[in-house]
């Protein structure tokens, strides 16, 4: 994981369960809105992650900036899904502006490394594994690798 994700993980790992819930809700509240240019695609059902119980839409982009490739992450999670908003929000926080290589290196057992597996229970972790796999695949495709 990159430095920002490590920072988030350390913070989550250092607090008891009740505060973990508060921290996660804070991430959910900070979830950035979907840019207008993606609204139509979302409304048409594009970008939907079907592996997840909640409605999650991902629109990863890879752009060139000063000769380097940069990942831009946009997502939308309509409805009441604070858990997915928190987890996807953490991914956006840590990887929006990262390199495609950094995204490819996100650990597949991220939730365990974040120390929130017990809070979520096994079924929800599988849902998130689908989100993560979709994100990595989407970025790899956009990066043309």
């Amino acid at each position, binding site marked *: 994981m990159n430095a920002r994700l490590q920072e988030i993980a350390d913070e989550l790992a250092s607090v008891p369960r009740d505060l973990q819930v*508060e921290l996660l*809700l804070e991430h959910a509240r900070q979830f950035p809105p979907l840019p207008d240019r993606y609204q139509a695609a979302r409304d048409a059902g594009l970008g939907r992650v079907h*592996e997840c119980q*909640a409605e999650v839409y991902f629109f990863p982009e890879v752009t060139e900036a000063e000769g380097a490739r940069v990942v831009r992450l946009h997502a939308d999670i309509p409805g009441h899904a*604070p858990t997915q908003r928190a987890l996807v929000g953490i991914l956006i926080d840590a990887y929006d502006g990262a390199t495609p290589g950094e995204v490819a290196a996100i650990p597949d057992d991220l939730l365990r490394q974040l120390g929130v597996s017990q809070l979520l229970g096994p*079924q929800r972790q*599988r849902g998130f*594994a689908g989100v993560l796999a979709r994100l990595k695949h989407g970025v790899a495709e956009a990066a043309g690798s």
Partner: protein
Amino acid sequence: MSEYAHPEVLVSTDWVAKHLADTERVRVIESNEDVLLYATGHLHNAVHVDWQTDLQDPDVRDYIGQKPFEALCSRLGIRPDTTLVFYGDKSNWWATYAFWTFKMFGHADCRVMDGGRAKWEAEGRTLTTEVPKYDSTDYSAEKPDPSIRAFRDDVLAHMQDGGALVDVRSPAEYIGEISHAPHDPASEAALRAGHIPGASNVPWSRAANADGTFKSREDLEAIYLEEQDLDPKAETIAYCRIGERSSHTWFVLKYLLGFKDVRNYDGSWTEWGNLVGVPVEKGEPDDDGDLDD
């Protein structure tokens, strides 16, 4: 409008609003698919029970045992004579799962708030983030009641006897095009796709209205009795993928339509579709009115 078979088990948002302060006799319990939803705001005085982290054994694929269940109830200040009211997200999908679990441990007075969270919020009623604290009790539970739970051998025998089975998954899962729910991770898939031979297919959500409430008795009878030809006097088993969607249908059949003997098969497709040697059927239901009318 005819009444449900057991109308006392379903309470309105109004009824709950009037009883929220009666914490001595009533405990309101929120159970959601989303584990953080309760913390974003819940009914005043309501406690949180999570279907996975509170009700499932962390190691064995099973519900928690009698002792952990007693500890859970004691921690929530519940006594055997407490009226429990369950509500939650997604048309009370997980609220009925929790209801079923509490019934399995023999809790006498369990109810469901019709419409769940969505209806409460749509009516502009108050939510709070304050978590109530209740004095611990010394709850003693019954041994788990197997009469509402079906195990794989029961299901196999039931199937061989031509017993009624209701598969509440999506048509695509039932037909066998896919072995996991369209919105679920493939890692929860079974090795085989299809359904238990002889099962009808009634997706669980057909029992709910758009606002999350249960459909009227007439509408439910039209689906389960007329269209699917199920007999309320016959032993019936409901199943889905892991037994949560089918808790909702179990509740509908048993309490709203008065089926005499209905069980939930919580092993469901993730067990059946991975068992060696059990029969699997694919394709559309062959004799049900809904596909050939």
